């Protein structure tokens, strides 16, 4: 079953072998072509001699199960595969942009660059998690970039699909992963928590920020287990350029307890895309690693900890959505904004770990100059922000799970939809004014949002309200 006969110019499975791109311990990668295919392709061929190398065989089987099920911009497109007992291979789209491994060598990178890269990888992970897959081997070498800047995750040999048998589960007694990046729970052989990928991404962010690995590159079980009780040096101790918000994000990703990390990759991406909204805790102030006593207490906790209950990606993601409240804060809309708040409150009663983003749109003129101040010279943006925060106060949502945004745009509905798309919002709650002939004729903001939103939308109305005949030209509520 060895693939030694493969050489440039030979053919396999209808593909012409062009050249050897990579030789690794588990597989070789060839660039290949097929007449009917215009996109660049690579063929991955597992290295196994007569099936006596279980790790490469199982890794290949896992990838063969998972890759064909994945879709979207954040994974290479699957083309064709062949399995044992014939010469096995997987052909997929080639992503020519290079891997994060190349940028890693240039670390430390500026904070903005780290945040941009991190947000792209987090978005890719969220897309993967939404498809029921945990990567479980997030390393710089397994992250590629499209020319557009989107991150692409590759190598699903250690991955787990929530809805398929986990071929890796019983196969090995040792933790499976890459030593420098593996999460503490993977060290304990738990393979069911999507937040494991956030830990690994945290290691990458740490490395890009400081040029160093937070837990080194250990060999052996004792070395791997160190990360369960040994806190890394805070990034700012190694790179003074690292701002507190970035340290906050990185150390939150590196929390030993998955519950203390971000709830989802989307929430992490949100933080990296909105540094000014990161709620700083004691993590941001840390200047040195924890003392020996704290380390000892953690070690005790590790010794006592039993196996962590296995979860499910799908169930977990359902509990940590980003919810967006589109609030109309104009005077006269109090009844509607009160109803909207009640609706949000009801949602948060069941969605304990959700994150709320409160958004309002300040409509700017399509033509002409927007001075951004009212007749008394007061800053309209700040006024809107103050009103928005006041609206949300009664919700009593902790600071680290709420954020506020004033969008300025001539088309409120388009601005709300664009915001929801770029911030991975999973549920929009928006108010609708009561119906009127004019609005029915002109259409309304909420109906436009319902039609164009990338996610679920709840439209809220004031029950039995009198039909307030206001012009709809400035607000963005309307009949939904």
């Amino acid at each position, binding site marked *: 079953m060895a693939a030694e006969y493969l050489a440039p110019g030979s053919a396999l499975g209808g593909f012409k072998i062009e050249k050897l791109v990579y030789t690794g311990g588990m597989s070789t990668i060839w660039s290949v072509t097929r007449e009917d295919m215009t996109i660049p392709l690579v063929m991955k061929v597992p290295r196994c001699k007569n*099936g006596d190398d*279980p790790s490469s*065989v*199982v890794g290949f*089987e896992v990838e*063969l*199960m998972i890759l*064909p*099920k994945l879709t979207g911009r954040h994974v290479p497109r699957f083309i064709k595969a062949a*399995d*044992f*007992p014939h010469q096995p291979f997987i052909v997929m789209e080639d992503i020519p942009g290079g891997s994060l491994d190349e940028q890693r060598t240039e670390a430390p990178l500026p904070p903005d660059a780290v945040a941009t890269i991190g947000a792209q990888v987090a978005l890719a992970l969220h897309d993967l998690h939404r498809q029921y897959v945990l990567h479980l081997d997030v390393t710089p070498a397994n992250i590629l970039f499209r020319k557009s800047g989107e991150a692409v995750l590759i190598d699903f040999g250690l991955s787990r699909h929530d*809805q*398929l*048998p*986990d*071929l890796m*589960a*019983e*196969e090995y007694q040792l933790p499976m992963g890459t030593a420098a990046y593996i999460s503490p729970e993977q060290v304990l052989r738990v393979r069911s928590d999507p937040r494991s990928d956030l830990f690994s991404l945290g290691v990458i962010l740490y490395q890009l920020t400081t040029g160093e690995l937070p837990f080194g590159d250990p060999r052996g079980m004792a070395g791997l287990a160190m990360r369960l009780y040994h806190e890394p040096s805070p990034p700012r101790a190694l790179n003074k350029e690292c701002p507190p918000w970035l340290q906050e994000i990185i150390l939150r990703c590196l929390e030993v307890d998955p519950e203390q990390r971000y709830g989802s990759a989307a929430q992490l991406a949100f933080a990296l895309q909105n540094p000014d909204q990161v709620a700083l805790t004691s993590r941001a102030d840390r200047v040195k690693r924890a003392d020996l006593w704290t380390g000892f207490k953690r070690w005790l906790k590790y010794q006592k900890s039993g196996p962590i209950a296995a979860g499910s990606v799908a169930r977990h993601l359902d509990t940590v959505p980003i919810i967006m409240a589109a609030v109309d804060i104009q005077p006269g809309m109090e009844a509607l904004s009160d109803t909207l708040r009640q609706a949000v409150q009801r949602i948060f009663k069941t969605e304990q770990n959700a994150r709320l983003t409160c958004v309002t749109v300040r409509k700017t003129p399509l033509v002409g100059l927007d001075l951004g101040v009212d007749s008394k010279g007061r800053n309209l943006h700040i006024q809107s922000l103050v009103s928005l925060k006041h609206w949300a106060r009664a919700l009593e949502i902790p600071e680290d799970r709420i954020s506020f945004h004033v969008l300025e745009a001539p088309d409120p509905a388009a601005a709300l939809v664009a915001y929801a798309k770029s911030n991975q919002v999973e549920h929009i709650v928006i108010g609708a004014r009561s119906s009127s002939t004019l609005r029915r004729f002109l259409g309304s903001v909420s109906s436009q949002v319902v039609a164009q939103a990338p996610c679920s939308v709840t439209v809220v109305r004031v029950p039995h309200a009198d039909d307030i005949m206001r012009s709809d030209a400035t607000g963005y509520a309307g009949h939904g």
Partner: protein
Amino acid sequence: MRTAFFADIHANREALEACLSHAELYDINRYAFLGDLIGYGADPGWVLDVVRDHHERGAIAVLGNHDEAVSLPIPNKTMSNEAQYAVDWTRSRITTAQTQFMEKLPLTVEESDSLYVHANAWAPGDWEYVVSVTEAKQSLAATLCRLTFCGHLHHPALYNQGIADHVVPFTPVPGVDIPLVPNRRWLVVLGSVGQPRDRNPAACYTLYDSVRNMLTYFRVPFDVEAAARKIRAAGLPDWLGARLAMGV
């Protein structure tokens, strides 16, 4: 080749009808009925006619313990009182031709790399259940076939064995295609059509596409109230109807 598998129908016409009509969406080439066609439910004659008709047109059918019990002269000691009562009731409601069709069913059918059996591969006529990895290992060790399809447990499950010999259990998610990776051996435990016991009252049947190597478990809702009403009207124990609504 697409095969639709139905196990543990247990004389439930409503459930079988729902599954057969669901399967019509999938361009099925062959049907397989893996035992326990009767027992518990109120429509043994109708179910036997449907299965016999499919069998005459090439469907696979194997014997289950309830099917066997109908022809046994003495009560089967391994059966619960309710099950035995239902078997005795069934005996009086089916024709000689229907009984003879059941009696002639084989315990196993084997073809190329697949084994079809009601309970397990190591002793098909002893009716022991595959409830965990231990029995799954025992069953996989008893056959050279790469794929084993069985029923009997009324809980859908899927076991696989890799080159390292470990057997990995899995609870299938309805409607999700599972690739049966060729380098592994698989034991497919079908759910029950007519009396699911995994707290999901929907009927379970399974599709296997041998070209794509893809296995899919389906759950199909059926008119539980009608099936339960008929059980009561037939004078069968009330509980046999009530449990259908609970999926236990």
